């Protein structure tokens, strides 16, 4: 019954937020971008609105949060009541506060990791596609071999060896993820490299750097941006999974994955508090996926 009720409330919220965001975006967008937002589906406007809220919460965390990040305030597992609107956790820290700080820590770390993976993977991928030959062969075979080990398993292996600190976590996940970005960037670039205009530029005698910068990158941006969204979702979920397993971001840093782990026992008593951080993860991933899906759909529509 509660499930059904929350489903209805959720759907209603989705429509309200989606519609409101769409109207706002259409109104506020500069004239040049207006057509972009005109036929935006509800899912996409909802996604954009949610992402915006997360960003604001992450940036303003200390202002929004009622208490300090690691502040122990007494009673454990307090119920939802003022001043602890979402109760307290195992150690008696304010749940709402930790949720707010989680936006900063979890999302921030995931974003940094994705960015790192992206820079490394896409530069290597485009380079390999452009140069071709032996370099491409060796690099691609090596990446293929690495990709034959499932991502989470490979991450676990590396974390065992290098230990679990935030820095190793970022480096390990970025390294594993860069292989996936490399694959995509290489195939996107390969699609561009066979175009006649690249042949024309080569025959003109253009250098490597100019070929990448002026001829390939401008045409690869759209698929790469969409891929960035997808990779972010993947990284975000991986880091959350690792934290949930106790191998990612460690307490006392407020992090959504480990918050679920710490408070999981409550679920067996029918208390949904531990699901809140899990829901926060899910909501952001849904939002990003919605926006990416819209972008991909637009890109494929424009091609025809």
């Amino acid at each position, binding site marked *: 019954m509660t499930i059904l009720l929350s489903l209805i409330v959720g759907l209603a919220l989705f429509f309200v937020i989606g519609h409101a965001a769409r109207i706002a975006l259409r109104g506020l967008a500069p004239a040049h971008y207006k057509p972009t937002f005109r036929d935006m589906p509800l899912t996409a406007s909802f996604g954009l609105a949610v992402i915006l809220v997360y960003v604001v919460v992450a940036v303003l965390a200390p202002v929004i949060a009622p208490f300090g990040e690691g502040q122990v305030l007494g009673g454990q597992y307090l119920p939802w009541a003022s001043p602890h609107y979402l109760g307290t956790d195992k150690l008696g820290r304010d749940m709402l506060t930790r949720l707010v700080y989680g936006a900063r820590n979890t999302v921030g770390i995931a974003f940094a990791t994705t960015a790192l993976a992206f820079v490394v993977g896409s530069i290597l991928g485009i380079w390999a596609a452009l140069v071709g030959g032996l370099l491409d062969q060796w690099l691609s075979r090596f990446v293929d071999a690495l990709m034959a080990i499932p991502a989470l398993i490979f991450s676990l292996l590396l974390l065992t060896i290098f230990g679990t600190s935030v820095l190793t976590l970022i480096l390990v996940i970025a390294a594993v993820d860069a292989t996936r970005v490399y694959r995509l960037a290489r195939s996107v670039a390969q699609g561009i490299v066979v175009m006649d205009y690249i042949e024309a530029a080569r025959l003109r005698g253009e250098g490597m750097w100019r070929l990448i910068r002026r001829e390939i990158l401008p045409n690869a941006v759209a698929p790469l941006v969409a891929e960035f969204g997808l990779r972010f979702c993947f990284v975000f979920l991986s880091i959350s999974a690792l934290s949930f397993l106790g191998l990612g971001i460690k307490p006392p840093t407020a992090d959504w994955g480990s918050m*679920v782990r710490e408070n999981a026992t409550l679920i*067996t008593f029918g208390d949904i508090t531990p699901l809140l951080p899990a829901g926060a993860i899910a909501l952001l991933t*849904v939002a990003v996926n919605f926006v990416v899906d819209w972008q991909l759909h637009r890109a494929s529509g424009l091609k025809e």
Partner: protein
Amino acid sequence: MNEIWRFIGRRLLLGILTLFVISVVIFGATELLPGDLARELLGQSATEETLAQLREQLGLNDPAPVRYWNWLTGVLHGDFGVSMATKKPIVDLVGARLGNTLFLALYAAALAVPISLVLGILAALWRNSIFDRASNALALTSISFPEFFVAYILVLWLAQTGFFPSMVRITGSTTFGDRLYMTFLPALTLTLVVTAHMMRMTRAAIINLLASPYIEMARLKGMSPLRVVLRHAVPNALAPIINVVALNLAYLITGVVVVEVVFVYPGLGQLMVDAVTNRDIAVVQAIALIFASAYVLLNLIADVLSTITNPRLMHRR
């Protein structure tokens, strides 16, 4: 036909080569450490004595290629070494759990593959309908959920009401039926996560083909939409669909780890997480190798299958 056997032979060789490279990566990863593995494992406070003992135990005094060779020959003879944490042979730890994990993965696959193929084909058939849009949004949503979120929602919903157990206890006397009943929630969790992916990719593979001239031709021959999709689109989408299925079955392997932890399921994933926490490197290496082998095997099967279904490769000019 000779061409096909040659292709399969080549692909098999490539698979073995990949496995070899993977074993080097898995074993060699420890060499990436700037310092000493023993000190890294025991921490700065360790005494020289305990360090020496650990080095002896890990065989760190031999050069790396020798250690790799010993490890590899051991693995090929079914000997993965000894767990540092429990001092038991790794084979004994892994044995029963491997069966449990395979059971769970196959259970989930048996549910997910038919459901997602049917849903994917229906979504392609009724593309842009309400059904298509709703299932697409729903699929995107469930892809976005972390496995533990799905798992706990199911626990809250189905286990709280007492329909299904939220923890799995398997003993020697558990019957097959009981097993199916007890592992239903973990299997359902995996199914939900994987189905969405598989369905979306199946739909995309078919829709990709629907713009082809031969599909238009079939419609202009007066064929019904169902026949157009089943007889004209699906046979050509087999290769991508096979790859989609393989990719997602491989994904099950990863998903198993988190789900096993949530449901306290006695499988390899659970064991691996414990081993990572204890930094029991030999166990982690063994399990990583097992998972990676399963992954390579799946891809191998998918490649061979999609070759056999391609008339261009089967019937040369």
